[in-house]
């Protein structure tokens, strides 16, 4: 069956890429100068010969480099990403704590990107070369040209410092207790806990970072959709639909848009990567307790194991996400499977 072969091939490719990714992070770890143990544990621990011996065995540091790599991969498969240097805590535990916040922020950003980008793209295509088109293209151009870190600062200055419409950095109002942890997404947890105040507070806090983070993706989506909708609108089946007297709204929404959305769905994978990248900067500016701001604080402190752990984790998430998109795409559009 074509579909299964396609899925298996994608899966195989993803595994190969993952292996290369692990070689890359392993090599980066090897490139760190000095005693590899010093780069992985705190000074206090490094002076203790028994701790050293135990850790050397655990990470296989007393073995030749190829064996070290095997040990590294084996540890990764067990979910052991090493330990953060100055907190001496397993990186995996730290990630578990920070990932939900990033997921939450990214989801809201995606919501903004699609919620604004799709209508913008449609309007631009329908009114091609007239003022709504120019306006929509200008907005999407701004979205893709503004450096996200400056946009964040500007938004904070205008809406928090000057106008006071939205709260400043943070995930919830100061002094507000977080709803009991279930999913880790404060918005969902607040709903589950029937805590209206926390839910509203979260929405007000997430609005600015989500818009700032989503602006780039919004620009991409609007631009892609505009051009593919323009192509679709000049296709024969659209002419047929018009000829049989369909109202223009149904022609655009029912016929052209469905086909035009395919390329836009493809760039969603790319968009996801841009959101993760943007999250690094957005979370830093808005003190959002996610993976991105964690990575930045670790990177600045040259906490290599933590940084490499985050890097590996994000690459893993990205590969899995793309795999899912690819497979879904192969199911939806049989033509893709041949490629």
């Amino acid at each position, binding site marked *: 069956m074509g579909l299964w072969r396609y899925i298996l091939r994608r899966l195989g*490719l993803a595994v*190969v*890429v993952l292996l*290369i*990714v692990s070689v*890359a*992070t392993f090599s*980066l770890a090897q*490139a*760190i*100068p*000095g005693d590899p143990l010093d780069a992985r544990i705190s000074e206090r621990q490094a002076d203790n010969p028994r701790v050293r011996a135990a850790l050397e065995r655990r990470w296989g540091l007393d073995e030749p480099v190829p064996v070290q790599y095997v040990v590294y991969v084996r540890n990764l498969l067990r979910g052991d990403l090493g330990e953060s240097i100055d907190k001496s805590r397993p990186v995996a535990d730290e990630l578990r704590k920070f990932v939900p916040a990033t997921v939450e922020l990214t989801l809201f950003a995606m919501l903004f990107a699609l919620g604004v980008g799709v209508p913008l793209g449609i309007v631009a295509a329908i009114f091609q070369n007239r003022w709504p088109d120019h306006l929509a293209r200008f907005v999407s*151009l*701004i979205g*893709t*040209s*503004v*450096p996200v*870190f*400056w*946009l964040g*600062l*500007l938004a*904070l*200055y205008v809406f928090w*410092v000057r106008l006071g419409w939205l709260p400043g950095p943070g995930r919830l109002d100061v002094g507000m207790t977080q709803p009991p942890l279930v999913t880790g997404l404060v918005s969902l947890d607040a709903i589950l806990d029937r805590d209206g105040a926390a839910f509203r507070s979260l929405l007000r806090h997430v609005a600015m970072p989500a818009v700032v983070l989503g602006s780039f993706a919004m620009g991409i989506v609007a631009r892609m959709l505009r051009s593919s909708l323009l192509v679709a609108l000049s296709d024969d089946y659209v002419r047929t639909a018009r000829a049989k007297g369909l109202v223009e709204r149904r022609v655009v929404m029912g016929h052209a848009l469905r086909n035009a959305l395919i390329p836009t769905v493809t760039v969603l994978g790319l968009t996801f*990567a*841009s959101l*993760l*990248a943007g999250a*690094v*900067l957005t979370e*830093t*500016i808005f003190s959002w307790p996610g993976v991105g701001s964690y*990575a*930045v604080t670790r*990177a*600045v402190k*040259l906490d*290599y194991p933590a*940084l*490499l752990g*985050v*890097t590996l984790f*994000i*690459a893993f998430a*990205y*590969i899995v996400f*793309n795999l899912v998109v690819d497979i879904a795409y192969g199911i939806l559009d049989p033509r893709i499977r041949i490629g």
Partner: protein
Amino acid sequence: MATTSTTSPAVITQARTTPVGPISLRPRRTPLGDAWRTLRRQPVAMAGLTIILGWLLLGLLAPVLPLDDPLTPQSGNNLQEPSRDHWLGTDELGRDMLSRVIYGARISLPSGVLVILATGSFGCLIGAVAGYVGGWVDNAIMRFADAVLSFPSIILAMTITAVSSGLPWGQNRLLNALLAVGLVLWPEYARVMRGQVLSIKTNEYVTAAQSVGASSWRVLTRHILPSTDAPIIVKATLDVGAAIVLTASLSFIGLGVVPPTPEWGAMINQGFKKGIEFWWMSSVPGIAIMSVVMALNFFGDGLRDALDPRRRGR
């Protein structure tokens, strides 16, 4: 290409059999000339070009312009809002922001261009080899490219910068950041180039060159590479902006260029640390970056239309 036709026998025989057309009275037209004519008619693209040239000129002339010293602190002058004396305000050490942002252009623009030239050439070369040689070489190169692409650029760049700053030769922070940006951006060029080479490879003139015994290297560099074109140039133009933003992001995080140097990202970071109520400190370099990226977008889109005959006049 003139060099190709004089050296390749296949093309010479073809030229002999081609009938010579009537002498044209129009001035001689070249593909580049055509592209330029199309480009010149696009006001938006020309606006982009003007902005870029303007920044380059400002950067070049910075030492002879009547600007304050961008590095020496001036006490008693700190954190001033934009005024008649300081059009764009001053930073926390009293240095003129206008001067700093113009001197910043001397760092950001050339670094962006150079890093794309380097990483683009490298990516193109390696992608061309992958596409031409095929087989396991192709597979190995492209899977490696996939692996690099599966890191969000800034995360990988952060990691590379952090690791290389610990190395003995890694003390030049700008160079570190640029190295990271370069290492992150090449795979996309490899992909685009590989695709082009794959399709050009099937042309008859390539088979002809191979059949008269041209070496792989010669076929690749003389016959295939000259036929690849527009998408790469457009991509490179747009990517200069991406490289500038990425380098600035690293500086903003605190991993790239550090404060005394007036690099735009580092300047935004300075404003962020000082407090967002001093909005001009981050906004001046922020608008500078935005204007360059936008101008490159304008110009790149125009270039895409100009270089692609099918899109001309659309």
